[in-house]
């Protein structure tokens, strides 16, 4: 484990049992991600990259092995702590945006802050600056259901950033976007990278192959990592 590692994964296995059938989704994964790195997990759907992302984000638990984030194991934390971890350290961007369609952009962005017992003023301030960062302030009071795909994605980014997490996890972020919006998304991602966020993108979109600021592309196949193409830190 290097000193600068923010995420360390050791001998990670994940299997699901359905009846007598044991399906191994992740097999002996070892991965180390450094602070400020931008990593692209590449693979076809079913290769296990979403599951790996879920486990890194504390949304799912491994069947065996270790996941350390900032030196602390997160694979066996009680709910209160793992939830706190998700709220504080992780910004999630989902494939389907996963917004609450009946709420406004502002209200959507507010959600991760609610358990934190902040005052309304503090929340307003954080939401405001986060919307600005994602370049969607002009739609702050619009209902999420009425936004376009690209706008939805930017609200989702604002929501992922609102608690100022160190790690941003993106699950197929461009799957539901056209090329234009995908490029815009990548541009915002670049800004986040410059801000020093650690970014992990799980995707099969070829647009990310040529990502100028990606430090590493890690191909995944059938639940295993198959080598990695390192580009070195910029």
């Amino acid at each position, binding site marked *: 484990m290097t000193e600068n590692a923010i995420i360390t994964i050791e001998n990670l296995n994940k299997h699901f*049992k359905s009846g007598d059938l044991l399906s191994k989704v992740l097999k002996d994964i070892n991965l180390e991600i450094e602070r400020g790195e931008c990593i692209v997990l590449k693979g076809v759907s079913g290769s296990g990259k979403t599951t790996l992302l879920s486990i890194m984000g504390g949304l799912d*638990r*491994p*069947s*065996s092995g270790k996941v350390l984030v900032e030196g602390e194991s997160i*694979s*066996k*934390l*009680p*709910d*209160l*702590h793992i939830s706190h971890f998700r709220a504080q350290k992780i910004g999630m961007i989902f494939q389907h945006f996963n917004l609450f369609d009946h709420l406004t952009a502002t209200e959507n962005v507010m959600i991760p802050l609610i358990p934190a017992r902040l005052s309304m003023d503090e929340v307003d301030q954080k939401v405001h600056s986060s919307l600005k960062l994602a370049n969607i302030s002009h739609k702050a009071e619009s209902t999420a259901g009425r936004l376009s795909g690209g706008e939805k994605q930017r609200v989702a980014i604002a929501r992922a950033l609102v608690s100022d997490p160190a790690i941003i996890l993106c699950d197929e972020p461009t799957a539901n976007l056209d090329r234009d919006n995908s490029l815009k998304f990548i541009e915002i991602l670049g800004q986040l990278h410059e801000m020093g966020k650690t970014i992990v993108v799980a995707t099969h979109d070829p647009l990310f192959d040529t990502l100028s600021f990606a430090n590493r592309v890690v191909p995944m196949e059938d639940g295993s990592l198959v080598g990695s193409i390192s580009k070195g830190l910029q």
Partner: protein
Amino acid sequence: MSEILLSNQVIVYLLSESILFGLLLIAFIITLEILIKWDFGSYSEQQFRLERRAYLVMTILLFVFVVKFLLLIYFVFAIDSLSLLVPGAMCAAGVISANDYGMLLLLLKLLILFFLLLWMAINRYDLQAKNYPLFRIKSWLFVSIFLVIAIETGVDFAYFGHIDTLEPVNCCSTLYGQLEGANPLPFGLNTMILLILFYLLYVAVMASALSSQRVSFMVALLLFVFIAYYSVVYFFGTYIYELPTHNCPFCMLQKEYYYVGYLVWGALFVGTYLGLISSVMEIGLKVERNRERMVALALLSIFVLLCTGFVAIYYLRNGVFL
């Protein structure tokens, strides 16, 4: 069927108690399963399921505590209104003593509330730690609470099923009054010494709490409740009723006295509960519980002020003591 069992309030009360018991039974079965199968180090699906089920136990206990607390007030109120149906009873005191179960039931209720509160304090601490360090203690605590509540629910039905509406009961003046000059106070105390003890113990409680003397705080607190009970019944109560011969812990809960009894006894018992819980947590589990202790001190101070206030107001108004 006894007409007592058909009284609205008794039906509502017994129904609520039965529902709570049903929920607790679910929680009890889950707790047994947890106690047998729990293995925190395991990554198995079973362990995660148990951890989730522990939350159901918590949810049920929280709900039970809130309802039991409301039901205690409701119980006292219901008993009070039953005094119309039971011959000879002027207030809850008579109805409570209508059979042997009444007093036992009231004591059980006070005890159960205390232990539920203790369970919640332990649970809170347990959830905040990273490896459920107290889960066995709290599970066994719940198992014992469940057994006591099972007894209580039985006594509930026994009590209300055995109130005779023909047999006259004693009213509070015979139950608590000084008959033939006999001294009702414990250890042959007289009123003067009782009062001195009351205030001395209050000072002791405050002093030991503020100087973090945990064991002496707990001892002082227990002695204080004991003495405070007698002080209210045999001294402060008479100023609430403005009648030197009226000794009764229940009449002050009535409308005639603006329900002040709920405030007096509420402040004393809740204050004591929180104080005891902070001590148990600190001595037994080595956990700092400053907030509970401070709230406890505030409530006990309100209680003492309230009691003293009744005497002071009476004196200011009438220029004499009773």
